[in-house]
């Protein structure tokens, strides 16, 4: 199933899964190497950008017509999220929040929208894409947060912001000093250990931040595919199970996509908030 051209007969279960888990890359072929910066996942970029635009467009529409009088339903919904983010950021970050609070709002809305792509039928958009492109084995993955690049890209953004706010609050000297002097103590012979631990800490924070969201959404997507495979058996119990289990998992997934968006936002705030406080 490497090129997506040889299977004329119905794909086997494993072929179906592998096909669904392969990205539409800029080369049009499956990425072979683990890390290859000459390629980009076109599907992830397009859908994450589209979801990002949808999220900020909805918020921008509300912001344009916002009234301090009686709010409409859309405004009330956005206000609910804004106030949630505002209160959380106020509690976590002590300092100038003029960028951090909007950032947290963006992260929550964007991640939520990207996660919500998981609620679409697993074969829906890929089928449409295959019809449009004329290639019946074209790859397409529609959930940007089920792509490690998508989540690690955002986690990298948070890492850069951690550095930025550390330097902004403590100054370059203060930050470097903290890297060497904390957490074990300001002794020459402890400097290597301090630095090593700090590097591990920053790496662990960023990678776990990206991996957590990726893992949850990837697993969720995979389970939707497995449920879809139930229906592919085309027996009455297979179809029945697909409908019943699919409904249950989809309803449960509403919780997961919201929760993961919230967790990503909260950890973004916590990590940036930690940059505001010295050891």
């Amino acid at each position, binding site marked *: 199933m490497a090129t997506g051209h040889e299977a004329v007969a119905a794909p086997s279960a494993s072929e179906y899964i592998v096909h669904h888990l392969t990205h539409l890359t800029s080369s049009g072929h499956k990425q072979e190497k683990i890390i290859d910066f000459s390629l*980009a*996942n076109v599907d992830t970029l397009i859908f994450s950008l589209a979801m990002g635009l949808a999220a900020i467009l909805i918020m921008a529409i509300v*912001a344009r017509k916002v009234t301090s009088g009686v709010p409409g339903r859309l405004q009330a919904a956005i206000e609910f999220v*804004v106030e949630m983010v505002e209160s959380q950021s106020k509690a976590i970050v002590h300092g100038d929040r003029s960028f951090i609070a909007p*950032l947290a709002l963006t*992260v929550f809305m964007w991640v939520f929208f990207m996660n919500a792509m998981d609620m679409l039928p697993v074969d829906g958009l890929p089928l449409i894409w295959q019809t449009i492109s004329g290639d019946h084995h074209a790859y397409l993955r529609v959930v940007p947060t089920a792509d490690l690049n998508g989540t690690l890209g955002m986690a990298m953004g948070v890492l850069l912001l951690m550095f930025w706010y550390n330097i902004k609050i403590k100054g370059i000297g203060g930050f470097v000093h903290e890297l060497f002097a904390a957490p074990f103590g300001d002794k020459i012979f402890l400097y290597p250990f301090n630095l090593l631990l700090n590097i591990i800490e920053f790496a662990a924070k960023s990678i776990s931040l990206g991996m957590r969201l990726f893992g949850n959404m990837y697993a969720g997507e995979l389970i939707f595919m497995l449920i879809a495979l139930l229906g592919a058996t085309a027996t009455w119990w297979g179809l029945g199970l697909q409908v019943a289990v699919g409904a249950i998992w989809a309803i449960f997934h509403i919780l997961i996509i919201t929760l993961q968006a919230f967790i990503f936002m909260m950890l973004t705030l916590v990590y940036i908030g930690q940059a505001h406080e010295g050891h």
Partner: protein
Amino acid sequence: MNLNATLFGQLGVFFVLAWFTMKFVWPPIMKALDERAGKIADGLAAADKAKSELAHTEKRVVEEMRKARESATEVRAGAEKQGSQLIDEARLEAARIINQAREAAEGEAAVAAQRAREELREEVAKLAVAGAERILRREINPQVHAELLANLKAEL
């Protein structure tokens, strides 16, 4: 699960979206929220003020009612007093008029009795003179004996 340049694309989008939100979404919504919070605070304060004003007004209404009732009582008492005074005066006036009338009647009666007595006396004197004339015939001259006759009239 492979890493590629998508990472950096996502990183760029991350900052652009956050910048957009900071610039165009967050400030107006926060402003509206703060304004509404202010309005609600003002409304609550106004409601409190109105409540205390209402209590104050109710107290004043009770006070005014009490005053009105008091003045009404006063007016009634005054009117009753004046009424009774008028009745007393009228009674006194009536008594005075009755007395006057009685006195006038008594006076008139006394004058009439006096006059009747004097007329009677004159009549008796005339009769006495006539009787004496008849007795004395020409011997008594009315001009000569006028003093005598007047004395006689006074004795009667």
